[in-house]
């Protein structure tokens, strides 16, 4: 899923880079196993990262290349699903690849294409440095590590423009508080929310994030987990009330339903900065700061964020996140050495420092600015951490979910019919009692 990736304002400062190279070469020796023996070898990699993300990743592997003398041959593409699906069927695969999600990771492992990382990475260190939920998501059904997270993202942050009203000193603690403050501080803003779900073939995904945020905070991690695994239907009151809450947001959004469905998610927040403002808030992941009008604005003065407020107090402190899973198809010495390097804190610190990524490794903390520092802290200190549910659902269901969002925005009165359709899609994609339903173990759990 392309939306699992995320980017930030890219700060490529030569001085910072020089420091970082120095830091990396001094405090860690990547590829200690291979050493100079890897010189001249090539590791072939495919992932969804393109543009600035591709540059950041290549900078991340540069110290390893320098150390070992091996080279990385990287192709970034958004057609990764097709490439890996055909690749697994034919055996024509790169050495390492970004995996679309835990579901596919299990399929590839079952097909014998994906190699386990148990003997490749330093397991105890990896487990101690990585959130348990991420370790679990990278574990295949037979208990082996099939994928590791290179970076992560925090979802469901609420962005505002301090020019209209500055919430940074006392952000709303609960959803009701947010609603009443929004009314009180509306001022000249035309609507409460900015919302845009257009994203080509993946249109609708910002809506899935909304619903996931509501389910997590209204009904708690257990319900979230069961729903993700197909044990709770979409038409269940617990899920339905999340849709209704989202419907309320859409009804109070800038421009109304035609605008929501026609507006690209990248530019959805632009009306925040208009005069008079089009809206008060935008709900989006941390990567929005590199997109649309945010890119040219200054964080802190032009925009800021507060976390999604709690709804039911017993589930206070819940956070939704996502991440980029990475796996190995060919266990060449060079590939193993690179994989070993990529999970380490110094490696992940490279991307963190460039900006645009939250680390999956707790010890990589060189965040370049206040926004990313606070995002990372939120992720670290979350009482309940849940992984993006739609990314864990089987592709077919995920696709139906996206379509359901778009249809609901267009015709809010057809909610029941949409949920019935989704129930059917869920029943065929995650038949209960079959091993398929049990395979992803998203278990939103207290983070360690």
């Amino acid at each position, binding site marked *: 899923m392309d939306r699992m990736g995320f980017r930030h304002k890219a700060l490529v400062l030569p001085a910072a880079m020089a420091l970082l190279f120095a830091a990396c070469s001094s405090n860690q020796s990547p590829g200690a196993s291979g050493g100079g023996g890897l010189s001249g070898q090539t590791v072939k990699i495919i992932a969804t990262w393109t543009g600035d993300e591709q540059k950041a990743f290549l900078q991340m592997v540069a110290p390893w290349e320098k150390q070992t003398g091996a080279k990385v041959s990287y192709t970034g593409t958004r057609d990764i699903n097709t490439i890996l699906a055909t690749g697994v*069927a034919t055996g024509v695969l790169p050495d390492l690849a970004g995996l679309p999600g835990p579901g596919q990771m299990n399929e590839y492992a079952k097909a014998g294409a994906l190699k386990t990382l148990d003997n490749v990475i330093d397991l105890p260190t990896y487990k101690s440095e990585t959130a348990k939920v991420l370790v679990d998501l990278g574990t295949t059904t037979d208990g082996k590590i099939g994928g590791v997270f290179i970076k992560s993202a925090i979802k469901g942050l609420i962005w505002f423009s301090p020019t209209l009203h500055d919430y940074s000193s006392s952000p709303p603690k609960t959803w009701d508080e947010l609603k009443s403050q929004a009314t009180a501080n509306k001022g000249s803003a035309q609507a409460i929310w900015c919302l845009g779900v257009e994203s080509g073939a993946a249109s609708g995904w910002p809506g899935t994030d909304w619903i996931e945020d509501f389910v997590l905070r209204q009904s708690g991690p257990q319900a979230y987990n069961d729903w993700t695994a197909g044990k709770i239907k979409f038409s269940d009151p617990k899920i339905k009330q999340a849709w209704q809450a989202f419907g309320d947001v859409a009804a109070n959004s800038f*421009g109304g339903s035609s605008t929501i469905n026609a507006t690209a998610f990248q530019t959805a927040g632009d009306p925040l900065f208009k005069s008079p403002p089009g809206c008060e808030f935008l709900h989006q992941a941390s990567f929005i700061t590199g997109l649309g009008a945010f890119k040219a604005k200054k964080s802190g003065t032009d925009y800021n964020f507060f976390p999604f407020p709690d709804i039911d107090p017993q589930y206070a402190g819940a956070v939704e996140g996502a991440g980029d899973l990475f796996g190995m198809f060919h266990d060449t010495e060079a590939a193993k050495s690179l994989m070993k390097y990529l999970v380490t804190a110094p490696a992940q610190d490279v991307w963190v420092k460039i900006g645009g990524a939250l680390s999956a490794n707790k010890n990589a903390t060189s965040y370049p600015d206040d926004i990313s520092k606070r995002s990372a802290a939120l992720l670290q200190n979350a009482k309940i951490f849940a992984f993006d549910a739609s990314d864990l659902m089987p592709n077919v269901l995920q696709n139906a979910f996206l379509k359901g969002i778009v249809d609901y925005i267009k015709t809010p009165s057809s909610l029941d019919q949409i949920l019935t359709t989704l129930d059917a899609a869920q029943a065929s994609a995650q038949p209960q009692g079959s091993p398929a339903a049990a395979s992803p173990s998203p278990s939103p759990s207290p983070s360690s």
Partner: protein
Amino acid sequence: MDPRIGTALTVLIGVPAVLIGYIYLTEIVLRALPERYKPRARPWLWLLPALAFLFVFLIYPTIGTFIRSFRNADDTDFIGLSNFQKFVSSDTTLIALRNNILWVIFLTVFCVGIGLLIAVLVDRVRYESWAKGVIFLPLAISAVAASVIWKFMFDYQPPGEPQTGTMNAFIGLFGISPVPWLQIDTFALNTFALIGVMAWMWTGFAMVIISASLKSISAELLEAARVDGANEWQVFRRIVFPLLLPTIAVVSTTMIITALKAFDIVYTMTGGNFNTDVIANLMYKQISFGDFGFASAIAVVLLIAIVPIMGVNIRRFQAQEAIR
């Protein structure tokens, strides 16, 4: 030596040399044969390279597609006609089928009609090359860039806001409020909008082929008709059009197949939402879901859909041979 120099030499000299060499080789082979076998063997030698390529790259995979269409998603079991049953029993497929019918009719009529009109019109102006270049231009644009272009065309902002989309800004000049072009499925307006994008891209294709054929009509023949007192419409109707008919049939067949396979514009612009889905997009989705069984069944439906069109072609070729 830079390995690219080797590649360049292969590309520019090696490849054409091998191919021309092959066709001379066939004569050498035929010389060894008794005289009466030569006419029988020759066509197959000439066809051999083409048939070999077609077999490996299209026929052999298609046989696999047929077999796969009867198997389940994991490729572990034969499931009879279940995939086809799934295809006909779903609402989304029915909408996609309806849309494909619209695509086939309107894309073909539009591209061939306008392509023919332009080819005939520009034949009469001095800036022919420029005019054709302009119509051809969109074909040179990749699908991704085309979807960016048309997002600028169809862009929608709420009423009262400055419109960034060309179409909405234009109708705004007449006081009409903005229209979310890609969301309105009344009378399949959004499907027609997508067909319009594709037609914008592909009219140049029809035009170039029709124009190439138009140029082969002898000028003397047309002049003779005019001397006999025929007006321009009569010349077109009685001479030009009948002579272009075989080419129009080729272009139409190609456009029908293009319409059946239409996919990337839908995929990038609406993702099949708002009742704009088409069969090829359904198939692509199934591939990305990893369900090659269902995807194969959809591909088989496409293959079956063209059988009648091919039947028309057979009859046309028999007719062509009868008159030449």
